[in-house]
Each structure stands twice: as C-alpha cells, then as structure tokens.
C-alpha cells in the first residue's frame, strides 16, 4: 500500500483520542460501597488471582457474588488473571484478597487504562485496519478515511476508555471472525468468533448470522460433497475451541451449570435501568414487568426476537454473500437489542460494530445510526461525568464522516440502497417518489431532537415527580430511531438480491 503512512497517522489519531478520553473519570469513581464497572474489573483480577479456578463462579466467604461476582465467560476470567499477574508485579495491594476492595489511586487508574489500551491495540485496531485494507471496489484514500471513521466511533471509545470495560476485545475478536469468514478463511473466522463468544456472552447477538452464513456456504458447495466436509470441519473447530476455553469447568457437571447460570441470569428481569429497547420504552405506557409473570415475559421476548430476525436469516442461508452477511449482522444484533431479554444499554455497541463495517456502503445511514447509538448512551455517560469527552468525540466523529464520505451528497435512493425497494413500491403507489427527501427530513428531525434533548438533560433539572424524565426521553427517542433502522436494514436485506438479479439481467 503506497499510502501506508496515512494509515499509521489514522491509527495514531485513534490511539491519541483513546488515551485522552481515558484521562477522564470512570464509572463509580469514589462512590462506595458498590463503585462501578471499573471496580468490577479490578475485583475480578483479585478473585481470579487469589482463588482456585473451581471457586471463581461460586459464592463463598472469599467470593461474594453479590459484590460484582464474575458473570462473563472463561476468557474474560483468564484475561483478568493475566492482568492480575502484571498488577501483582507492580503493586500487590491492588489485588490483595478482601483488603483491596474499592482500591483507587492515580497509579492504579493508569494501570487499568493501559490494560485496555494494550488489549485494544492488539486485537481491535489491527482488525479494523486489516478490514479496511481488504475492502473491495474503493480507492486507497477511501479505505483510510473509512478506517479513521471506524476508529473514531465515540460509543466504543467512551465505554471502554471512559466508563471502563473491555468491549474492544470481544468486538475485536468478532471483527476478526467477520474478516475471516468473508475472506473465505472459514475455520479461522469461526475460531475467532468462538473466542469472542467466550469472552462475552453478548456476542451471541452475532451468532445467528455467522451460523446462517456458514451454513449457506456449505449448502452452496453441495451438502453431499465439499459442503459436508466444510460443515464437519467447522463443527470440529467450534467444539474444539469451546472445549479448550471451558476445560477447567468441564471437570464437574455442577461447575458447568453454575457458570451457565452466572452467564444467563434469567431472574434479573426483562430489562434493567434505562435501555433504549422496546420493553423499556413500552414500560412508559404499561408496566409489563409487573403485569406478566416472569416466564411469559421470557417467552414473549423470545418470540419477538425470533420473528424479527427470521426473514433476514433465512435469506442469508439461501443466498450467502459477504455483503448480505454484514447487513444481516446489523439487523440481527438490532433485533436482539430491541426485543430480547435482559438487555444492557452498552449492548448497542454490538449493533454499532457491524454498522461500522457498512460505513463505506451506506455512509449517510450508518453515520446517522452511529450518532443515535452514542446518544442512547447519554444517561450512562452523564452518570460517569463524561459529558465533555462525549460531546467532543461525537463531534469529531461527525466531522470525520462528513469530510471523508461527504454524506450529505449521498442521499439519493440509489446511494441509500433503496432503489429496488422504491421501484417495487411504485408499482402499486406511483406517487411514491419522496422517499429520499423524507429520509433527509427524518435525519434533520432526529439530529435536532438529539441535540435539544442533550441540552435539556445537561442544563435543566427534571421535575421532582419525574426524576428520570430526561433519561426515559433519551431512551424513548433512541428506541424510535432504532425501530426505524430495523425496518430500513431489513428492507435493504430483503430487496438486495432483486437488484442483483436485475443487474445481471441487464448485463
């Protein structure tokens, strides 16, 4: 690549922004007794370092599961253990059993932030760079611009480096998976994706598209010949990688079951806090959680999720293509986010990742979505005192997208990939010509609402009767936006091959 230096610059800008954001506060800073996710991660280091593997997921006098008990899959635990060894080397106080609870210091913050940066630098950033280099049909300059926009996506930066989590690890593995699967290195791709699932169970949001895409590939090759061989190989890879990750927990049945119980806490309810999904928004009108029994809620959310992602998945099995795969990733993850059980606001990052991947194909809609997704995190970011970095990084991201893709000039039906859809609608409704303009107006309305709501949340005090007024409004508005995006992405997926077939006919 002749422009390697520009790519280096882009990565350096991404790193600089990440580190400057990390100078800010983290979740639960100086807030005993529970603190926040920062303390959770530190606590996991303490647990994994001081206790034998068999006790990690069990409640005991040394491991109070009520206080940030380990509830992520084994890879997270191993990662914590690795960090703990480094921590032990620098300062054993940081991970001393019991006494280190709620430990906070500048040096420790520096250490924790560095672990995030290193994980990011090793897993997520190379994946992004490689993904952008592998993009087809666009110029080198566009590839670099694309990498810049993806690396500047504020949601991930703010959650990982502000709030404090290691999302870049699981998302990075997932991205390696996407990369492998779309470059026809199916085994490596599925291995990477298994690692992603074993780092964070939320990656299951992406599992169906992976499954369908690979299954579709097998079908395409013929189930009696090469396809079958591939299927067996894939199954072996998946099983082997899972067994490897779970090895210490397979010794006893009770161990495995306990880990699974920790990973899927069904009894924690339909949703927690304020999430921009259907259930939380619907809760404004009707308190579903109090009316329906727990198991009905579970079945209901399962049905909704399943129905909403079914069409896209069937389509992917029948016509596996790497473009369709990326769009199906978006729509499936979005369905899970909107309808499934026990969703966190941070899970929107799982939708944002595949949206970042289609940034170069539908820049206008992707930018819009990524802005909304960052906005939906606003209540959380405000709680962590991250207003300033949020606003600044969001603006930086927006400017980067506007200058590198000139998104406002790409709002024709063709560039929104809605051409074939509007043609087929026009067969029945000839006057359906306002789609492109309508989307432009919707964008304006959406952006103005988001800006106004942000300003109101920051400046006004909510009325005493409704202390959560603004955060509920933020969730509600974001949820409306997300519903619109779900419809949009499903339309793209369903109408995609028709245009493909038409083009083939023409050619």
């Amino acid at each position, binding site marked *: 690549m002749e422009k390697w*230096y*520009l790519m280096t610059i882009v990565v350096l800008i991404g790193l600089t922004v990440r580190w*400057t954001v990390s100078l800010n506060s983290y979740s639960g800073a100086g807030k005993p007794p529970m603190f926040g996710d920062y303390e959770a991660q530190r606590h996991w280091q303490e647990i994994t370092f001081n206790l034998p593997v068999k006790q990690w997921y069990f409640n005991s006098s040394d491991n109070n599961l009520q206080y940030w008990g380990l509830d992520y899959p084994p890879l997270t635990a191993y990662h914590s253990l690795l960090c703990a060894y480094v921590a032990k080397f620098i300062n054993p106080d940081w991970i001393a059993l019991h006494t280190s609870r709620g430990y906070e210091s500048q040096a420790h913050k520096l250490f924790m932030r560095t672990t995030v940066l290193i994980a990011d630098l090793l897993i997520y950033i190379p994946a992004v760079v490689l993904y952008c280099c592998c993009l087809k049909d666009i110029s080198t*300059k566009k590839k670099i611009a694309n990498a810049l926009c993806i690396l500047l996506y504020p949601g991930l930066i703010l959650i990982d480096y502000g709030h404090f989590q290691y999302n870049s690890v699981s998302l990075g593995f997932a991205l390696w998976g996407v990369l492998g699967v779309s470059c026809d290195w199916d085994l490596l791709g599925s291995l990477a994706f298994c690692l992603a699932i074993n780092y964070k169970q939320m990656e299951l949001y992406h599992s169906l598209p992976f499954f369908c895409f690979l299954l579709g590939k097998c079908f395409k090759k013929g189930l009696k010949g090469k396809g079958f061989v591939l299927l067996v190989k894939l199954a072996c890879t998946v099983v082997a990688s899972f067994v490897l990750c779970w090895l210490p927990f397979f010794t006893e049945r009770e161990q495995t079951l306990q880990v699974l119980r920790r990973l899927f806490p069904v009894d924690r309810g339909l949703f927690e806090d304020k999430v921009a999904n259907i259930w939380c928004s619907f809760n404004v009108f009707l308190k579903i959680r109090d009316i329906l029994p727990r198991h009905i809620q579970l079945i209901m959310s399962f049905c909704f999720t399943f129905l909403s992602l079914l069409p896209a998945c069937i389509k992917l099995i029948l016509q596996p293509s790497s473009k369709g795969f990326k769009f199906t990733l978006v729509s499936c993850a979005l369905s899970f986010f909107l309808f499934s059980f026990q969703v966190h606001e941070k899970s929107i990052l799982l939708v944002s990742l595949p949206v970042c991947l289609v940034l170069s194909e539908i820049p206008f809609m992707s930018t819009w979505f990524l802005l909304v997704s960052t906005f939906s995190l606003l209540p959380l970011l405000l709680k962590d005192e991250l207003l300033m970095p949020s606003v*600044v*990084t969001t603006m930086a991201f927006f*400017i980067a997208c*506007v200058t590198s893709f000139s998104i406002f*000039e790409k709002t024709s039906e063709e560039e929104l990939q809605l051409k074939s859809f509007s043609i087929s609608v026009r067969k029945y409704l000839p006057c359906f010509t306002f789609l492109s303009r309508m989307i*432009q107006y919707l964008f304006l309305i959406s952006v103005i609402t988001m800006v106004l709501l942000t300003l109101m949340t920051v400046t006004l005090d909510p009325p005493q009767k409704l202390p959560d007024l603004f955060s509920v409004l933020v969730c509600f508005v974001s949820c409306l936006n997300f519903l619109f995006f779900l419809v949009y992405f499903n339309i793209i997926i369903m109408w995609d091959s028709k245009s493909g077939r038409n083009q083939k006919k023409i050619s």
Partner: protein
Amino acid sequence: MAAFTIAAGTGNWFSALALGVTLLKCLLIPTYHSTDFEVHRNWLAITHSLPISQWYYEATSEWTLDYPPFFAWFEYILSHVAKYFDQEMLNVRNLNYSSSRTLLFQRFSVIFMDVLFVYAVHECCKCIDGKKVGKELTEKPKFILSVLLLWNFGLLIVDHIHFQYNGFLFGLMLLSIARLFQKRHMEGAFLFAVLLHFKHIYLYVAPAYGVYLLRSYCFTANKPDGSIRWNSFSFVRVISLGLVVFLVSALSLGPFLALNQLPQVFSRLFPFKRGLCHAYWAPNFWALYNALDKVLSVIGLKLKFLDPNNIPKASMTSGLVQQFQHTVLPSVTPLATLICTLIAILPSIFCLWFKPQGPRGFLRCLTLCALSSFMFGWHVHEKAILLAILPMSLLSVQKAGDASIFLILTTTGHYSLFPLLFTAPELPIKILLMLLFTIYSISSLKTLFRKEKPLFNWMETFYLLGLGPLEVCCEFVFPFTSWKVKYPFLPLLLTSVYCAVGITYAWFKLYVSVLIDPPVGKTKKQ
C-alpha cells in the same frame, strides 16, 4: 439540507483540519498543567483587581507580571469574562487556586484565542505558490503546510498541556508574515509592532523585520543586478513605518511613561539575574558548552589535573542550580551571550540586505535570527525553538533543501520539549502526538519532493532514528536502574545534549544554504 451541507463545509478540508485540532485541544483539557497555569491566573487577578500603577509592582505571588503591557491588557479583558466563571480566581491572594471552573475558563480561553492562529494559517496558505504536483489533496503543498502549522506538536503540548498563550501570538506573527508576502507591508509592520508589545521574546526576530522593511519597502527599486538603488529611497514610507511603530509603542508604554514606571517595567521584562541556562538546558550552543565543561572536568579529575576540592559540588549532578559554575572552561556572562548572538545574526542580516530575495529571503533570515538567538541567547527556554520551527514550516513546503533542514530541526526541537511533560499519564500523549507529527511531516514532505534527491543522508537518518532509543533509555529504562538516585538529571542532560547536536547542525546547514544561495537576479538568468 443544502444549507446544512454548506454549513458543515462538505469537502472543505481546511475547516475539517482546524475543527479537528480544536476538538483534540478540548480533549486535552484534563491533562497536567504546569505552574504557567498559576502564572496566568495570577496575572488575571492582578490586572483585574489592581490599578494600572501597581501592575508591575505587585509581588504577592512569585509569578510577577513580566510580559509587556498589551499582554497585561489582554489578561485584563479576559478577567472580565472570567468573573462569570469563578470570582475567586481573580483574587490576588488566592495563590494556586484551580477550581474546575477556573481550569475550564483558562483552557477554553487558550483554545478560543487560537482562532487567530487558524486565520493566520489560512492566510499563509494563500501565499504559498507551491509546485503543482499531483492532483490528490493530501499531496498539495497547501494541505501539508496547514497540517504542519495547525497540528504542530510543539504548539499543542506547550499551549494546551503545559499551558501558555503562544497560539494567538504566533498567529499574529504568521499573519504579519503573510501580509508581507501579500505586499501589505504597513499592515505587516503594524501587526509585528503589536506582537512585540504582547511578548518581547519576538525581539529576537525584530532585526529581520527591520532590515527587510527598510530594504524592500523603503527602497522602491533595485538595480538590474539586484543591488541597491540608493536614489529610490522613499521618505514617506520610512516616516509612515516609523509612525506606526511609534504609535503602537506609545499606546503600550505611554501610560507607564506617564506614571514614571518605565524602568520598573523594563526591569521586569528583562531579568538578567537568572542563569545562563534554564533548569533544563535548552538544546543550544551553551548546552554543548556546559557538557564539554563537565566532560573536561571529569577527565581532569581522573587524570589528576584538577583538585577535587576546588570544584563546586553542585555542578556535578544537579541541573537545578540556576547559576551554573563552569569548572574548566571560562564562565559565560550575559554580555558575552549578547555579543555571540549579534555575531551569529549579522551574516543573515547582511544577506538580507545585499541579496534580497523577496519575502522568501526575509523568511529565511527571520528563521535564522530566531535560531541564532536560540543558539546563543541568555537563559533561553526550550519552548523558544517554536519561534524558528513555525516560520520554517512555510519554507519547508517550497524547496527540498529547506524541507530536509526543517525536518531535522522540527524533530529534534520537538523532542527536546519532552521534559516539559514529565507526568506518567501524559507520557503516552506526548509520544503519540510526537509520532503523529513526525511521521506525517517526514512522509508528506518526502512524497512532495519524491522526484528530487532524498531528503536525508545516512548520517541524518541515523541521528533521527537515534531519538527512539534515547527516549526508551531516558524514560523507560533509566527509572529502573540504580543511577536514578545517583544521577537524577542524567536523562535531561542526555536529551539536551543530543538535541543540541541536531539543532546546531540544522542551524549550520540553514546558514550555509542561505549564504551560498545565489541572489534572485542570477537564478532567473540561469
């Protein structure tokens, strides 16, 4: 939507660059800030709460007002905005006060004032005629120049981390240079006069301004061979120039002259009581001189030429002692540095007079003036290297030879700023930003001049690559060795000497290229 497109400046790379760096500056708000933060807070308090007559007498804080009057007035104006943020910061007795609102106000005031700098860069880009190489935006000289100036590493860390107001001052300087390029000499002279009364460090480059304006503005014509035509002297122009400078100075110093405080003001502006070198030696000639002195004294002790009892103890380990005692070489007096500086500046001034090459020649002379005074000045700060780096950026995108000197100068000069930021959280920032700027400047200038001979020879490449291991040794290996206690200032000394070599080399190379460069008339004939 169309209006929105225009407002967002689609495809307008300049506003994207400027906005981008502004946002980066906003992200730097929570970083470490030096005592200069308190210095400026104190000045806000002084100008706000005391009458003019006491501005230059007030000494409650050790950070007394030591900038010229315009800067004091600037702080006065700022203080009237500051009172809406936090009244407490305007109290003279409130030493080391830094509430979060104070921090926000001060940081934002720097970021806001940089608007002037951005405008100046915009004007400078217009003056670049640059060769038309490549259609691609990233290969245009204008684009490269605006990145080199707007995203300048030194300015970013000195202003937005360390905390100072250099941005808008350099804005004034670049603007006045741009005006001279645009043949709007009076404006240029006016802006420079104003600048001098904001911060007197710019006196270093005043000779270049004076000679250039006299030679190229007051003399309206040249002989065909480029030498001066004495009868073309324009009295009107001289008088109007003088009038501008006089009026600006009167406005600035007049009130203090009326109060009969001028000697006090000047004693604050030029404190010769400080030592030859700053606590951390700026990488100039004197750093090499001091280092040589140390080496000689060590050798002398080993070979028993020197008596250990006669050697001042402090000189061996500490860099913090302001009055550095030389053991072998003769000690340097302020007068000696002044003479050295003048001698170093003179040839470039002669060049400007006898071989006028238009604004470009002026710019080279200005850079040389800045660099020579940096090399030989008394109590030079490492930050003063920016005075040479920023104007040199303008030269670098026009000629391959200048580009190579610029790259050596910038890279070493910027690296020598590293000791300004010594706190752990800022370590990644300074390394990342430095890499960002260095990789960009080297790669983009290489691409720009790819058709000409390589920018660096093997020696220069080797030297520049050596900065990497030096950084690793000084900040990653050294703190874990036993020498940390014994010789705590060794990394500073190494950095300073290593950078001094590079800067001296760049200075020398630039001087040679200016002196042997044929005058304009001859180049045209060739």
